[in-house]
């Protein structure tokens, strides 16, 4: 028996709506099997994964804290991926944004004013965008593969941050530990609703950015340009769109948003620069972008789901002793199922018996 795909005449609205749920269902089943194999009660495990983190208000705040950088980075990446620019270096752009945004609170701590925070955010955006411009420039000017340059630049950014917080920017009152001084209150991104938890304005930025980019993609000429150049560069050329400008546009948007995520995380959730400021948000955001099918609104949901899986993973680790490796395996599985189910939107799956397959093969080989 073999599987054949038959292209649908048009996108299936039915599966477009239902495929995420089918994927979730399959993940739950596969997860239940996995937990049973591990000797855990599957219902209990799944409960801790998906329900427990949603039960308390503080936990919902934490969900927002965790999801904010994922969504911010992922919506930027969606522009890149839709236009065929494979930026997988958002982690580096996140870090560089965080560094650039921290210039004021670290180097001029006595400068305290309402203007500090807006300036920090702008500098964060600029820092991320500038770092994103490097692979864009190399791609346009030298035709260098952006997947690799953007990835290599991640390592460079991590080491640069490491050097900064151990060397020039080390906290003078920090016993020579690797960290910058803690930001003054005027440099800290406020919490949205501090009475009940610590979710900060970074989450609001994420939602605003997602809605804005959704509008741009679906309602403006620039959005149309992104899609056309992504699907068919030749057609885009005939339409008079510039491939090079699009490369820069995509990288600057993605880098800028990653930078904004970086400075929001540092200013809102951490309060200082440290050798590690991201547990791999830039990479996890790639998953979020695809989970959300490169649609900014879908990405909001995807970011929340992925964040939930982190929180749920912790809950399961504490309460029933599921190890944290399971979380990663689980995330990989979820992504597999989502990707596989999305196939149903564009294609009909046909199962062909083995004899029939042979005939097909035979006719092909003639």
């Amino acid at each position, binding site marked *: 028996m073999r599987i054949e795909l038959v292209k649908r005449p048009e996108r299936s609205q039915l599966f477009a709506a239902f495929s995420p749920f089918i994927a979730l269902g399959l993940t739950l089943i596969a997860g239940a099997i996995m937990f049973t194999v591990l000797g855990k009660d599957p219902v*209990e495990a799944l*409960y801790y994964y998906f*329900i*427990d983190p*949603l*039960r*308390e208000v*503080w*936990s919902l705040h*934490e969900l927002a*804290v*965790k999801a904010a950088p994922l969504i911010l980075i992922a919506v930027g990446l969606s522009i890149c991926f839709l236009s065929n620019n494979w930026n997988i270096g958002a982690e580096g752009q996140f870090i560089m944004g965080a560094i650039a945004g921290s210039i004021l609170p670290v180097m001029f701590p006595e400068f305290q004013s309402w203007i500090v925070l807006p300036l920090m955010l702008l500098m964060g955006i600029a820092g991320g965008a500038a770092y994103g411009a490097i692979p864009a420039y190399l791609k346009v000017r030298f035709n260098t593969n952006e997947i690799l340059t953007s990835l290599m630049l991640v390592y460079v950014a991590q*080491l640069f941050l*490491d*050097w900064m917080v*151990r*060397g020039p920017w080390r906290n003078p009152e920090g*016993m*020579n*530990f*690797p960290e910058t001084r*803690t930001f003054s209150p005027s440099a800290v991104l406020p919490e949205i609703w501090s009475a009940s938890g*610590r979710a900060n304005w970074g989450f609001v930025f994420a939602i605003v950015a997602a809605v804005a980019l959704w509008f741009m993609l679906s309602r403006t000429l620039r959005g149309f340009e992104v899609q056309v150049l992504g699907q068919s560069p030749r057609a885009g050329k005939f339409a008079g769109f510039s491939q090079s400008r699009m490369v820069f546009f995509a990288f600057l948007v993605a880098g800028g948003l990653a930078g904004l995520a970086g400075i929001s*995380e540092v200013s809102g*959730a*951490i*309060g*200082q620069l*440290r*050798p*590690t*400021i*991201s*547990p791999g948000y830039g990479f996890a955001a790639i998953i979020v972008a695809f989970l959300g099918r490169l649609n900014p609104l879908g990405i909001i949901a995807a970011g929340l789901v992925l964040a939930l899986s*982190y*929180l749920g993973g*912790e*809950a399961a*680790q*504490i*309460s029933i002793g599921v*190890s*944290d*490796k399971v979380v990663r395996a689980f995330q990989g599985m979820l992504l597999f199922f989502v990707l596989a189910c999305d196939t149903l939107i564009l294609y009909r799956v046909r199962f062909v018996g083995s004899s029939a397959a042979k005939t097909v093969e035979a006719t092909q080989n003639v």
Partner: protein
Amino acid sequence: MKKTILSLAAAAAVMSFGTMAAEAKVKACWVYVGPIGDFGYSYQHHQGLLQAKEKFGDELETAYLESVPEGADAERAIERFARSGCNIIFATSFGFMDPTNKVAGKFPDVKFEHATGYKREHPNVATYNSKFHEGRYVQGVIAAKESKAGVAGYIASFPIPEVVMGINAFMLGAQSVNPDFKVKVVWANTWFDAGKEADAAKALIDQGVDIITQHTDSTAPMQVATERGIKAFGQASDMIKFGPTTQLTSIVDDWGPYYIERIQEVVDGTWKQSDIWGGMKEGHVVMAAYANMSDEAKKLAEETEAKIKSGAFNPFTGPVTKQDGTEWLKAGEVAEDGVLLGMNFYVKGVDDKLPQ
């Protein structure tokens, strides 16, 4: 409607799972920065958890979170523990310092213990650390006795005071035997990358060192040393299995006694804020069996260990000169803990430049 179903499910879940560990008197919780499978730093903390579990049996409920990244996630992990009924929480990495203090302010009834830090902003926060440098001094003594080349290789992780302190203690120990002893330092810029640590060990050996010591966590340097037929020191745990003919000794981080002591205090209601910097004397730093060395070296090592253990000798006792030639400690002067904990300079003889 949806809400009702959710809360029903939640209620059912609470009922079925809520009664599980009702007998335990105390719940102790650990936050680890690495995987417990690192066979190094986090592994050793986890061994401490296991020791406590064995000691208290059913009286103690334990929980842990591994691979918790420093940064925004740490605060969530600690707060989650505080909310889930932990009586005492051990946050075992330096990067957890600010989150620990922040959460401690919100949960005054929960005890917080932060390893390797210095901030105690609330009465329910204590700090603890181990004087690993005492073990490194003994290693230096052994290295200088056993090395024919007169130069040892030091695989370091990151330039933080603790690591710098270790390098200096090793150097001083070696100089106490051979004033001309040299130490070559390679910064691996990782706590944990077996391949890179192995490469660093090979590079050092190719540059003529005949003893390797490490302040990174994997056993790879030990294996490389075995292969190249030189001697090496283990790190964090007893690595003799990885180098039966190679390991001279190892500094074993034994956190168990401290954990047991502090949990007992919570049980008794006598827990108080403190700043414990335990060493050999307190049993926090244990030397693995001295092996693969001459009797003379072994004897000297044991004597040095005994001297430090009894409190008669501090590895940082003058006269000590800094790398730049200025005097740091006068003859007989003992370094203050505060200076050590923020140490950012080398003593004379270290063949490396510290990033400033």
